[in-house]
């Protein structure tokens, strides 16, 4: 039962992560020019050279990642297979590790924070923690 609640929390967080990443992607691609806001930091992070991987904005990859997580969690909730469980948790752990890398990039390399990136990264790390917990319970 408790396990189910955790999976639903992961699903809800992934939906929030998807909304956040889609917003950031659209803003990066068609949004207003980059600015340092008086109260909410700089767009500089989302426009920096680190924000692009293989020619694709990281925010867009983030949106695809959260969409994939939503699909995998939904699939697991329907079928409850061991393979589905593994895919769901491994993807969440990969996302969490990548989020930690992005946190480090903002803190130590770019030296600036972007609000929507931090939201996405936080969700990634929480989902990883929940996935690790699920794996321990499952054993």
């Amino acid at each position, binding site marked *: 039962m408790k396990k189910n609640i955790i999976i639903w929390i992961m699903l809800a967080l992934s939906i929030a992560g998807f909304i956040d990443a*889609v917003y950031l992607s659209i803003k990066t691609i068609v949004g207003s020019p980059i600015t340092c806001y008086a109260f909410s930091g700089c767009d500089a992070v989302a426009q920096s050279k680190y924000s692009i991987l293989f020619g694709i904005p990281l925010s867009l990859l983030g949106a695809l990642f959260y969409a994939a997580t939503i699909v995998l969690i939904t699939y697991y909730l329907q079928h409850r297979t061991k393979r589905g469980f593994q895919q769901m948790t491994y993807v969440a752990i990969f996302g969490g590790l990548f989020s930690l890398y992005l946190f480090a990039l903002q803190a130590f390399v770019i030296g600036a924070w972007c609000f929507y990136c931090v939201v996405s990264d936080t969700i990634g790390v929480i989902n990883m923690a929940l996935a690790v917990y699920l794996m321990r319970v499952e054993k």
Partner: protein
Amino acid sequence: MNKKGQEIMIWVLIAIGLTAIVLGMYAAVVTPAQTDNANTETLATPVAMDEQRKGSESAKVTIVEYSDFQCPACQYYYNMTKQLERERGDQVQFIFRHFPLQSHQHARTAAIAAEAAGRQGRFWEMHDMLFERQEEWSKSDDARQFLTGYATLIGLDVGKFVGDAQLPELDERIDSDIAEGTKQQIQGTPTFYLNGRVVQFRSYEELQQLVDAELNK
């Protein structure tokens, strides 16, 4: 409905939901925010003679920029205005107004350094130096040391530069620019006004088009 039917239904709902999120976010981003105040659109304080200016006074195009030397976005735009200056320098006048953000630790110190350089007629040389070397001084714990170094590099009398940096007039000038910007409801930096109207551009080409439109009026 059987189990298979239910599953398909859920996938359809997910697809619709995700698409709705994408469309909703797109609408939210591309619809410009409504501003109730016309103040934000037009330049409230006209350009005065004693401001930091560059270019011909009789230029057909005047660009006023509210800027922060430590702001990475301002540095990004610096390259565009610099290119404009190279290509249209005789037809465009640039005005610099300070708007150092509190989130940038050394922004005010840098603004004072630029003003102190201005006392020796080298405001714009320091301005260029600060943007070109932003990575260097803005990440340092001791920005002052770098700023003094730049003063030497641009050929200032360093003793006078350090002394001038202590003058209360410099602080007052920056405060006055900030007060004007606040009255203007500047949301962030850089904010550009082209012939008194707020403008937004994302690339040099867009800036060029805006300027050419004014020149051809």
